[in-house]
Each structure stands twice: as C-alpha cells, then as structure tokens.
C-alpha cells in the first residue's frame, strides 16, 4: 500500500516536473530544453501534463491518508520529490539534447549557465564547458 502510494506520488511529481520544465523552456526561450520544437505547443503540453498529473493523482484514489494508514510521511515525500525532480531534469536534458541535436552545431561560443540552452542543447553546452575546463587544467 505504502509502496504503491509512494510510486503514485513519484509519478505525479515526475510528470508535473516535466510539464513545468517545458513551460519554463518555452517562456524563457530555452530552445535547447524543448521536447517539442514549437515553444507555444511545448507550453500548452507542459501545462496539460501538470494538470493531468494532479487530476490523475487525486481522482484515482482517496489521498487524505496518514502515514500510518497507507500515506507517506513528510520526510519520505521530500525524498520522493527530490528524486522525481532530479530524474525529470535529467530526462529533459538528455531527451531534449537528442531531439534538438542540430542546435548549436554552428559553433557559437557557449554562454555560461542556463542561458546556453537558448542556442544549444544541454549535452553540447556541457561538453564545450568540460573541454574548456580540461584545456585550462
């Protein structure tokens, strides 16, 4: 029961996080982070993912349960949230890098931080930064 509740919570956070990341990528024009090439569609799909994840979680079962009756306690919920969020960020970075692999091939210098995702993919930006660090050392 607890395992199933934890898994449901993990799925809720993972899908909602993926949706939020697409909404952010679309709003901030992080083209290298988009899973769908059109930013407006990515925003809409992201929003739908967030709403659908919450609707599924709360409509599929009764969720007001204490941790002694099948629910999960606060610490466990925090652990589930951080692992699901990390996985969502990892999945987004890897898949968006594969989907947008032509982005950033023109050899533009990589901007620092997340701003690089405006003109290149995460994996390409990371590889450029690691190469630069390697050369410097």
């Amino acid at each position: 029961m607890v395992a199933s509740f934890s898994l449901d919570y993990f799925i809720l956070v993972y899908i909602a996080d993926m949706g939020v990341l697409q909404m952010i990528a679309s709003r901030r024009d992080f083209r290298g982070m988009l899973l769908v090439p059109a930013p407006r569609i990515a925003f809409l799909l992201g929003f739908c993912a967030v709403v659908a994840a919450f609707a599924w979680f709360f409509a599929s079962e009764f969720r007001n349960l204490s941790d002694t009756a099948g629910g999960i306690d606060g610490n466990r919920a925090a652990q589930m949230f951080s692992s699901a969020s990390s996985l969502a960020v990892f999945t987004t970075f890897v898949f968006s890098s594969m989907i947008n692999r032509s982005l950033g091939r023109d050899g533009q210098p990589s901007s620092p931080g997340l701003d690089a995702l405006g003109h290149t993919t995460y994996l390409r930006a990371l590889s450029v930064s690691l190469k630069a660090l390697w050369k410097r050392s």
Partner: protein
Amino acid sequence: MEALLSIDSAIITWLNQWVGKWGVLDKAAELVVSDYLIPTLLSLALMSTWFLARDASDRAANQKGVLVALLGVGFSNLTVLIINQFYFRDRPFVHHDLELLFYQPTDSSFPANPAAVAFAIAFGVFLYNRAMGVVLGGLASLWVLSRMYSGVFYLSDGLGGAAIGVCITYVFSVLMRLIEPLPTTVLSVMRRFHLA
C-alpha cells in the same frame, strides 16, 4: 493564556460550523488540506524559481532565494521537532465536537509543522523575488486556513508555525550574506555545468 485559548476555540468552532453546509466548499477544502497538493505546488514553484528569471543576475538572486528557502525548511522542521519534545498540545478535535475533513493527526497541534515549512518556502523566495514570494505566501495561507476549517489546527498553531518558518528563514538569509562569496561561488560552479 486562557484568553488566547478561548479565542482559538471560538475561531475554530465558528469556522468548522460551515463544514457540511456547502458540498463544493468541503470538496475543495478536502483537496487543499491534503498533504500532497500545496506542498507539491510549493516545491514545483521552488523549482521554477531556480530556472525562471529575466536575466542571469535575476536568476542568481532567485537561486539564492531557493537555497535560503531549502535551509529554512530543513531547520524549521528541526525546530518544530525540538519544541514537540517539550510541549504537546492536543488537536482541536480532542476537545471540541468538530466535523473533520482530514484524518486525525496524532502529533502535537502547536506549532504547526506544515505552516512552518510552507512559510519558510514562501518567505525564502519573497526575500529575493517579491512577486513569486507573495504568490507562495498566498498558497501557504490557504493551506493553513484549510487545515483550520477542516478541524486539525487552531489559529495560534498556524501562526506559531508560520513565525518559526519566517524567523528561521530570515536567520539563514542573514547567514547567506555573511558567508558571501561562498553562495555565489557555489552558484558559479553550477553555472559552469549549466545547472544554474
């Protein structure tokens, strides 16, 4: 103290009398009061705050807000845990005939841990991003209000929890400034790996 307790009792009995009068309001309260809706929304907002900003300097400020909020959450939780070792207050439904919309928690009513955590997040973000902080503060207040309506908190439990969350988070925001340039250095290292 007696006066405070009687005000608390009067507020919760007045609020709880509306339970069962409007089905829609009760359904909404059952959803909002949950352990999983508002905490998850607050955490998602915290993650968005990390990524969202007009430019790199705004983003760096937001990210410091997220770090302060996370430290505030952890230490507010710890503070509530320590207080609970020395002080236990019964939940309102133990002494009043209330209609419950939530399960019966067995831990101390004062200080309210959910209020401490929610207000730590909201205040941490508010210190660096006013607009987002106000939205999160609204969500945190809604959560506390729904818990009172549902019969599991007194007003003073919520206020006590919120005060702990705000004070602890403020202390960490001051510490964050005192230990500069460490936070900025941590963020610059993360920027090198395109994570901040």
